[in-house]
């Protein structure tokens, strides 16, 4: 089967989402890729230079968060890859799933009282359904 892609962003749901993806990779023996999407559309930067700085800082943050996720996987005997993509979350995830011919996408649902502005659209099940329809990839939402 194709690789399992775990979309992560270091929020409140990230740990349980990553753990779920690691367990799935171990069970299936499939490769695991942690994906971070640097989507700066939430901020509406007022200059090109600031937009670039924002994208770069998001990428740095992504690198660090993905490194932590990789260490977490390694500690459980899984050698995971990491990838960063820029752009809107939905489009970037769909493109990446096609690019790596993924079999499964694992997403986390933020709990109550987490981020003010989530990087994912509010209706997560609908979002998952739409990605599945667009790419044919199984989508697991970790609640």
């Amino acid at each position, binding site marked *: 089967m194709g690789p399992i892609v775990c979309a992560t*962003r*270091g*929020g*409140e*749901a*990230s*740990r*349980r989402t990553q753990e779920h993806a690691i367990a799935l990779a171990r069970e299936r023996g499939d490769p695991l890729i942690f994906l971070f999407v640097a989507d700066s559309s*939430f*901020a509406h*930067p*007022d*200059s090109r*230079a*600031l937009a670039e*700085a*924002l994208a*770069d*800082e*998001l990428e*740095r*943050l992504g690198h*660090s*968060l993905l490194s*932590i996720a990789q260490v977490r996987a390694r500690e459980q005997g899984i050698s995971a890859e990491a990838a960063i993509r820029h752009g809107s979350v939905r489009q970037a995830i769909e493109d990446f799933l096609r690019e790596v011919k993924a079999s499964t996408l694992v997403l986390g649902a933020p709990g109550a*009282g*987490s*981020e*003010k*502005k989530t990087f994912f659209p509010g209706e997560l099940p609908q979002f998952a359904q739409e990605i599945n329809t667009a790419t044919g990839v199984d989508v697991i939402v970790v609640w």
Partner: protein
Amino acid sequence: MDEFLAVESLVILLLLVASIVAIAVRRIRLPYTVALVLVGLLITFEQELAFEVTPELILALFVPPLVFEAAFHLELSQLRDNLIPILILAVPGVVLSTLLVGGIVSLGIGLSLSLAVIFGALISATDPVAVVAFFRALGVSRRLAVAVEGESLFNDGTAIVVYNIVLAAALVGSFDLVKGLLDFLWIALGGLGIGVALGWVVSRLIAQIDDYFIEITLTTVLAFGAYLVAEQVHVSGVLAVVAAGIISGNIGSRGMSPTTKIVLFNFWEYVAFFANSLVFLLIGTKVNVPQLVTHIVPIMVAVGAVLIARAIVVYGLLWLPSLRGQRVHIPMSWRHVLFWGGLRGAISLALALSLPRQLPQRDLLEVMAFGVVLFTLLGQGTTIRFVMERLGLTKRPGPIVARERRLGQLYAAQAGLSRLAELRHDGLLAGDVWAALRDEYHETSHLLAEEMSQLFAEHPDLEREVLLRARQEALHAERGALSDALRQGLIAEDVYRQLVSEVDRRLEALALISEATTPARTDEE
């Protein structure tokens, strides 16, 4: 010349006192402005100041920079989110408060209704400096801060307009409701219009330049100029400054480099600190304690009237839009803060001091105004923190506090160990003592590090927060290193500016990311 030097010496002395007070309040749980008033009071017990606090001094010199700074910092999007409650409190709220206070005071102490309504108008402007200072220190929701600051900014202007209208009516001896309403609209909208126009012109100028000295100068001209121009054409100077500040802070700042933005915002924060320090010290020096004691009954009635009116405005008026199906999202806990945090300050005193000499019972109105301002500052200002704590508005997420606590302990342990290593290196610590203490410190550090790991395991959301903060710390260090490099002549001024600007831009980007990912605690009830 001698007089000039005397004034200069007095200002320097007051600033020195203000600095000492600012240092002292870091150790005691008292708002800075409240402490200033108390110290001002103590100063006059010793010796009366040879300095007249005129209403013109407060209104034309101190109020414009204070209002401009607050408006300059106000984000248009946040203002828009809170506009309905802010306008309700600042327009009908001020009018209702004026009438309610006037009515209660008239009934309570037998003052004529026209004079009591003048008092109601002059005491209606809120001055939440002491409250907002706590908001910043305690990390209270920005939305609540915007609601409190926004109300204060606009009601400063509307209260002055209402005051002038009712004062004119009292002096003439008749009041025409339609004319009063038209005057109100003309003065308020005229002031806002002038502010918007001048703010826009200066913002356009600022967009063409990237030099923070010029931009600071232009915003200074704007802050005072908007006030003066508006007053010259007999419209609201304060509302002109409010509009000019909001426009230049939101539109003007768009074209600024991050460095200019930081320098400009720091400049205005300092100007506000400077003006606030002098205003509240001078308020303290103007309080005549024996006179307050003599008039304690009317003052108590006035305090009661102000509190009742405030309660009706905050709890009653903000509830009205929901009757029409409109949602004004101000949680009840915030309304309690709006009620108890409705302190009175510089505007009320300036208006009280500006009452015409020929007005009957003028001295009584003035002493009542001082009494109310003093009560709100000393009574409400000193307890608002307690109220906010009781309402749970100052609570920070437990895991974050726990992480900071362990981090602090870890820093302290490392500093202790490093000092012991220095002592050992200098031969001041015996080998076996050093070894014992070192092992103890290592053990503590190890334990703390394990506790931090455990904390991260239990609260994964801390990961991102820690990464963002660490990156911010690193960027601040980079900024400091660039300043050192400039001082040492390693890099030229233009290279320094360019590099610092890049760091500032990154800091701004991190602030945006932090804002978008900070857990919501107090925004919702």
